[in-house]
């Protein structure tokens, strides 16, 4: 999968590396601020109540 993405990024090695970094950052931000807040209530790590 990653080699497929790498082949499709335009430019030389420098440009590819920069764009790849941008992609990783974009995915990280999406996970941190959109995906995790929505799925974490399904996980048991954060229970602090007695019930």
């Amino acid at each position, binding site marked *: 999968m990653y080699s497929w993405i790498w082949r499709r990024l335009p430019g030389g090695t420098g440009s590819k590396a920069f764009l790849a970094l941008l992609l990783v950052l974009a995915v990280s931000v999406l*996970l941190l601020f959109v995906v995790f807040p929505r799925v974490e209530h399904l996980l048991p790590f954060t229970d602090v109540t*007695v019930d």
Partner: protein
Amino acid sequence: MSRGGDLVRTGLRGVGQLLLTAGFVMLLFVVYELYVTDILAGQAQDELSDQLDDEWAGAASGPTPAPITPEVGEPFAFLHIPGLGADWRRAIVEGTDQEELAQGPGHYVGTALPGEQGNFAVAGHRVGRGSPFLDLGELRPGDPIIVETSDAWYVYRVLGDPATGDFATGPIPGQQIVPPTDTSVISPTPLAAPDVPPSGAYLTLTTCHPKYSARQRMIVHAVLEGGPIMRADAPDGPPALQEG
């Protein structure tokens, strides 16, 4: 290189990339739990504090505290614990679902309200989401836990013997570790059956234990000292607020 070898190689590479990706996502989740939730909870606390300050500004104050009728998801009081830091203050929200606890300490719906006979029970996160109760284990018997409402202050003291530091001197210990299913800690009289009438005005804090785990619960019990202190009589709070 044979065609079969290529297939194996591609397959193995795919598995390797999948594992690396899963590892990265899990690390990112740890970063989220420990840091990002702190930022989000900090913003939420700031908003709740502003909301309370706005609501309370210019509120009329009678000779005795007005009854409180908190709505789920809304802030209604401040919690001050000088033992956790001189400026330690958090807005308490009504309700203990994840949504409420993501903003700050949450009041168990149906338990007593500040100053009332019964058990004013509050849950809060130990690690992440601002970590309000991170150092709850450092509270000693006799330490003040102060609740501030629109018109009054209530000073609770952690149960136990302040001289020896022993939590378990009475029928209700100042601190205990219980399984998550033990709801008796938030009974009107802590540790009694839920239908036993209250034997005093208590405050109970619950959080997870040990740190970074949700296997058990750390519980702190405190009892009301005296009665309400009207805000009009103590605009800057009771003397207990300066203990630390």
